[in-house]
């Protein structure tokens, strides 16, 4: 019955709905906010997000091995020239949209009643954030991409500062300044590309780019747009804002930030490089070095920084930097396997990292702290959360089961022969971030590790979130996310991926989709467990082993910590360095 109803719906009606429905709901919420009874915004927002997810999944399954194209206002292209704005949804974009809808629905359930006092304003911002993400995934117009990019940023700024403590405001300010700069860069880049292509439609720009040959205007446009997207994706050296912002945002918001927003930077970069800049030899020559280089650096640096943190959300934020770097290396491989791996990884990572931020939120709500050392042994009463965290840590390290593993194995396969250093960096990043999460699990839930004594007091601000929800309501969405990551059938993804990537990249990416070897999946898991065990049982080891490790790693670790100064001026200087790096890679290509 429902199947018959669904198949009667023409695809053309579906495409604008995932963006329009959340916009309509949030306008209604705003207009009637003070009249609505307490829980109604929660219910409405959850249902809307679910609807968006279902609509996206429906479009994705209809897209098949092509793309569904939709022209707004009925402005179909004339004589091959696009007049209005189009959406073009291929299976990959559609499924990522479906995942985002689901992640929001679960984040709303997780945040049930948490934002009661704001008259639905939290839900309004989150729904706008959702609509912008879907628009960003679906659009085929460069300026429209920029509009959704900016809506995402504006909603995110306010959500970050929600707690209004000094650290939250500082983090939100850093986030606002750096991401506003990203907006300026992107707009400048769009201006350059428009000057050359005289159109904003992806296909039109791609044709102009292919005709332009080695043109500094095209290269300059790419440089600016790519820098903006890499700021969103938190690639080294643009990564500084992320840890400051993700660490202080309310947990349900962090779930979205780390689970979807950062990966969308990678997603946008993948789409633009494969669709718009496929015809530019200069850009295509520069990409492998640039993306695998910066991606590998992010993977290792983010993992190492994660290992150094005791603030649990900051730890997870750095692990997001590491994993976004891993995704970037896949795009740098410029092959169907690399980009396909990165897109599968986006979904798998979003599920696992979303689950981990929910566990951090559970600790903030039930144990009123987020400091790993201060929480030592305090997790004993909430064992199921500990089990979930351990599973998530192992999945993050690359336990060979589930969607995240499938993505990373595709990445391994694409990188192993061609970019060995990026391959090693991927394994290292997975091992380091997995170790950091496993160490925190062991310390918090099993009470392992040295008794901290005076060090137990957290150096950061007192933090807590409202404990107004039962444990199962917070743990449920987290377990659903982890379970989904594990049970998505690999055969289905395997069958879907080649056609989906071909449609996503308009056939510009070649190569098969081989999975990497099994040892490459087990290696980081073993290393993560060993590293976590070392960190927890260090005090029982002979000093001859501990001392050289401490002596060699303490100085570079301190240097790294000093780089993440929290000072906005430093971050802007590094942003300029990153921009110069991209420009340099383009000049040398």
């Amino acid at each position, binding site marked *: 019955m429902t199947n018959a109803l669904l198949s009667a719906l023409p695809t*053309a*009606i579906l495409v*604008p709905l995932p963006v*329009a429905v959340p*916009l*309509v709901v*949030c*306008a*209604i919420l705003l*207009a*009637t*906010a*003070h009249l609505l009874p307490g829980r109604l915004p929660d219910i409405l927002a959850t249902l809307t997000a679910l609807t968006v997810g279902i609509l996206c999944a429906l479009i994705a399954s209809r897209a098949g091995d092509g793309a569904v194209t*939709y022209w*707004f*206002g*009925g402005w179909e292209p*004339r004589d091959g*020239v696009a*007049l*209005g*704005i189009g959406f073009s949804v291929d299976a990959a974009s559609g499924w990522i949209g479906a995942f985002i809808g689901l992640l929001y629905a679960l984040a709303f359930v997780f945040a049930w009643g948490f934002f009661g006092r*704001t008259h639905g*304003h939290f839900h*309004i*911002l989150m729904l*706008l954030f959702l*609509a*912008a993400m879907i*628009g960003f995934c679906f659009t085929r117009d460069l*300026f*429209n991409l920029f*509009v959704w990019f900016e*809506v995402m940023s*504006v*909603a995110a700024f*306010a959500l970050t500062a929600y707690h*209004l403590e000094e650290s939250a405001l500082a983090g939100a300010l850093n986030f606002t300044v750096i991401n506003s700069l990203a907006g300026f860069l992107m707009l400048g880049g769009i201006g*350059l590309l*428009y*000057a050359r292509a*005289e*159109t*904003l439609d992806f296909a039109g720009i791609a044709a102009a780019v292919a005709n332009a040959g080695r043109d*500094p*205007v095209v*290269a*300059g446009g790419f*440089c600016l747009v790519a820098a903006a997207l890499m700021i969103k994706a938190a690639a080294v050296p643009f990564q500084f804002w992320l840890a400051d912002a993700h660490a202080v945002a309310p947990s349900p918001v962090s779930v979205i930030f780390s689970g979807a927003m950062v990966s969308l930077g990678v997603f946008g970069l993948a789409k633009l490089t494969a669709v718009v800049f496929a015809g530019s030899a200069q850009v295509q020559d520069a990409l492998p070095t640039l993306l695998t280089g910066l991606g590998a650096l992010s993977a290792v640096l983010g993992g190492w920084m994660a290992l150094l943190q005791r603030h649990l959300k900051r730890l997870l934020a750095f692990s997001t930097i590491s994993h976004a770097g891993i995704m970037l290396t896949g795009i740098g491989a410029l092959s169907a396997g690399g980009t396909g791996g990165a897109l599968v990884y986006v979904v798998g990572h979003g599920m696992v990292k979303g689950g981990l931020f929910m566990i951090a939120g559970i600790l903030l709500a039930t144990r009123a702290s987020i400091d790993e050392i201060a929480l030592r042994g305090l997790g004993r009463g909430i064992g199921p959360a500990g089990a979930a965290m351990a599973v998530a840590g192992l999945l993050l390290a690359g336990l060979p089961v589930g969607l995240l593993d499938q993505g990373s194995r595709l990445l391994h396969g694409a990188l192993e022969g061609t970019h060995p250093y990026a391959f090693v960096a991927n394994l290292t990043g997975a091992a380091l971030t997995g170790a950091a999460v496993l160490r925190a699990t062991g310390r918090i839930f099993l009470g392992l590790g040295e008794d901290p004594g005076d060090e137990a007091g957290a150096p950061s601000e007192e933090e807590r979130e409202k404990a107004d929800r039962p444990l199962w309501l917070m743990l449920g969405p987290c377990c659903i996310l982890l379970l989904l990551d594990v049970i998505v059938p690999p055969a289905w993804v395997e069958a879907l991926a080649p056609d989906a990537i071909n449609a996503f990249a308009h056939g510009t990416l070649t190569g098969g989709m081989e999975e990497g070897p099994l040892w490459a999946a087990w290696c980081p898991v073993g290393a993560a467990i060993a590293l976590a065990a070392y960190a927890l049982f260090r005090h029982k080891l002979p000093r001859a082993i501990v001392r050289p490790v401490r002596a060699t790693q303490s100085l570079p670790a301190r240097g790294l910590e000093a*780089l993440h*100064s929290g000072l906005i*001026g430093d971050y802007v*200087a590094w942003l*300029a*360095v990153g*921009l*110069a790096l991209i*420009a340099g890679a*383009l*000049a040398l290509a």
Partner: protein
Amino acid sequence: MSPRLRLALLGAALAGLLPGAVAVIRRLPEFGATIAAYGERINAIVPAERHVANMVSAINFDLRGLDTLGEEFMLLAAITGTVVLLRGRRGENTTDRAMRLPGRAILPRSEAVVLACRLAGPLLMMFGLYVVLHATVTPGGGFQGGVILASGTLLAYVGEGYAGWRDVIRSHWLDAMEGGGALLFALCGLAPMLTGAAFMQNVLPFGTFRDLFSGGLMLIENAGVALAVCGGFTQLFLEFLEETREAAGPEEPGEESA
């Protein structure tokens, strides 16, 4: 990093970017070169097919209406965010007492100001409405007119005092205006789909070229934007002015430092 090191790093990066920037600028189209093909095409299409004299409105509300829908909701996000952050610190209570600088004399409102505001207020509102209504004919439109209308309400504050202003302006009404306007705009997108047309397709009669009633659906979208912008900006004024009021109780010390 020390400030000197930071500046050196920034300088080195910018120096590295300089040759690239020069190369890009040298290859850009000449200043005053013919307008892009996209713009030329739109100029040819719009007066004939939409009966609209103001190209900017035609692009904003018809050809690239989705962008404007996104921008409208970006404004909504920015205002909602501001409200959340300011009220989060201040609370929702309102008081009538302004913060005062000690030692500064409080001058009574001069009659000339009251008179000027009472005269200028209605005129300004009328002008705002004019700009809104003539969106498809002359420069301007819902956004510009909405901002003028919102600033007209500020004259009530200048002329009648804060209490008088607060009596007229109710936060809930502003929310309803802002949300309702945005909803109207979004529904202008969805409603044509009921007739089998595309999202935001201009299915209404286009009217007469250079007439107030031209542009079809654009007029309704424009009214939605005007409503939302007027409500949103007045909400902003309200929130920022409320920041200058004295805190309700002594237990909120954040007020003076903010």
